[in-house]
């Protein structure tokens, strides 16, 4: 062996007998549980009926067309994306307020965050939804939007916002979700800003940059890099939290799943399928974000 020799080969992790036994025990447990469920519940599985709610064959257009469940998934996705956009806007403003010099702004943003983080999402949404739909929306005339207006009644609009007839419903759900998640994003932004070393502030101010320029050119660019990973995670959390919106009759995936389960009485199949749909959606995004993060790290000097 000399200075340039490679290191001695270390054993790679391999499956041992113990691991194999562990997996066998787990499999046995699951099989037993399924068997007992089948035996005790006298349940007649009917997957095809439920799967029929994913896609159906449309006689008129003679093609496969999305059915309720996929439409619900589309609504969930729209909710998640729009709510994340607005929640981020709210979060950035509030996050800045949490860290600025002005006492009033600090108090307001602190109250916002503490209020929302200390009540359950369902309760907040019930409170806020009824305020939004009965007070705010009539005040700004959402109901009066002409549903036949060409700006509204076209395919692009439907793609972005869903069925125009359900617009006020969708907006209400989106606003509730945005305000709720905004509180968590506020804390993410605040942490990003505060984790920027104090020396950066000092150096920037010592070369005569105004507070606005210090923030915009020096602090925020550095904070953004720290904020993006947790923000991505928050998007995935939002997809899951959006299930709560079903309680205020927004036609997203959970709401539709409830209806399908009730109609077909195939409770297990519906919820297992919907669980799988949420899983595929969330895990895909998780993999995507992990990939983007790795790419970003690699290109970092």
């Amino acid at each position, binding site marked *: 062996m000399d200075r340039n020799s490679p290191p001695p080969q270390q054993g790679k992790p391999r499956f041992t007998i113990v691991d194999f036994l562990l997996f066998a025990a787990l499999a046995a447990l699951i099989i037993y549980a399924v068997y007992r469920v089948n035996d005790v519940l006298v349940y007649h599985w009917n997957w095809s009926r439920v799967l029929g709610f994913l896609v159906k064959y449309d006689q008129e257009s003679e093609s496969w067309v999305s059915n309720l469940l996929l439409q619900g998934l589309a609504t969930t996705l729209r909710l998640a994306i729009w709510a994340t956009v607005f929640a981020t806007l709210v979060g950035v403003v509030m996050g800045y307020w949490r860290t600025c010099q002005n006492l009033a702004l600090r108090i307001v943003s602190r109250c916002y965050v503490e209020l929302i983080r200390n009540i359950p999402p369902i309760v907040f949404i019930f409170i806020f939804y009824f305020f939004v739909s009965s007070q705010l929306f009539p005040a700004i005339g959402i109901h009066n939007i002409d549903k036949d207006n060409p700006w509204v009644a076209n395919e692009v609009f439907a793609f972005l916002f869903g069925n125009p007839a359900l617009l006020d419903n969708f907006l209400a759900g989106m606003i509730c979700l945005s305000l709720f998640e905004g509180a968590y994003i506020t804390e993410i932004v605040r942490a990003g800003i505060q984790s920027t070393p104090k020396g950066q502030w*000092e150096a920037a101010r*010592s*070369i005569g940059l105004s507070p606005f320029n210090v923030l915009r050119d020096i602090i925020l660019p550095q904070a953004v*890099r720290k904020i993006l990973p947790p923000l991505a995670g928050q998007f995935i959390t939002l997809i899951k939290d959006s299930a709560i919106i079903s309680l205020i009759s927004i036609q997203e995936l959970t709401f539709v799943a409830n209806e399908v389960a009730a109609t077909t009485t195939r409770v297990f199949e519906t919820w297992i399928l919907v669980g799988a749909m949420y899983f595929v959606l969330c895990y895909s995004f998780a993999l995507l974000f992990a990939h983007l993060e790795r790419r970003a790290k690699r290109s970092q000097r």
Partner: protein
Amino acid sequence: MSESNNAPPLVEISGLCKWFGEFSALYDINLQVNSGERVVVCGPSGSGKSTMIRCINQLEEHQAGTIRVDGREVKPGMKQIEEVRRDVGMVFQSFNLFPHLTVVENLTIGPVRNKLVSKTEAVERAMHYLERVHIAEQANKYPPQLSGGQQQRVAIARSLCLQPKIMLFDEPTSALDPEMIAGVLDVMIELAEGGMTMICVTHEMGFARRVADRIVFMDFGEIVEVAEPETFFNSPQTDRAKLFLSQLLGH
């Protein structure tokens, strides 16, 4: 050596007091620095050396006494503090370069945002000062790619780009590996010999002997002794200065 003239001092501190909460960090500091003078501030840890120079550009706010920079009073909460800061360059112990900007961008952002020069002139100015600190070849690198000594020289160039009237150095070599200290000190010596007014907080006594017009010795938040280097090092007047010097080994 500075010539005595009738020009007002560049920095005038009188009766300066600063507290951190209940703790008295500075008490009754009086100091005048004239244009072209090089002042080295030394003393044990916690003596208030850094706090004092940080009050000059209001990175710390003082509670009593007055500070004047080029005749203009510097106060906590004053509106035009940015104008003062353009005239007072500062070099930090931990360099504090902006890691998301290249070296050149680090240097141009100050002049450009302060609307002092156009973008092209700012780049020219940046390259000029990068050459002065002997680091022009690193212009398009990012700070994390540079060694400590290189980063500190970039930091010096960054302050110089604003063409300040006075440079403040807050222990510029204390965070550097020994082999890089000389490179930074050489740049500072060149700066001094070029006539830059500077107040330098440092433990590098060799540098002080070479460059300083005056040594200001501080202890426990007060200025204890002020003397020319030879007087200070060879025949210190106060007991505290004597004790401090005896603790410095062979600098």
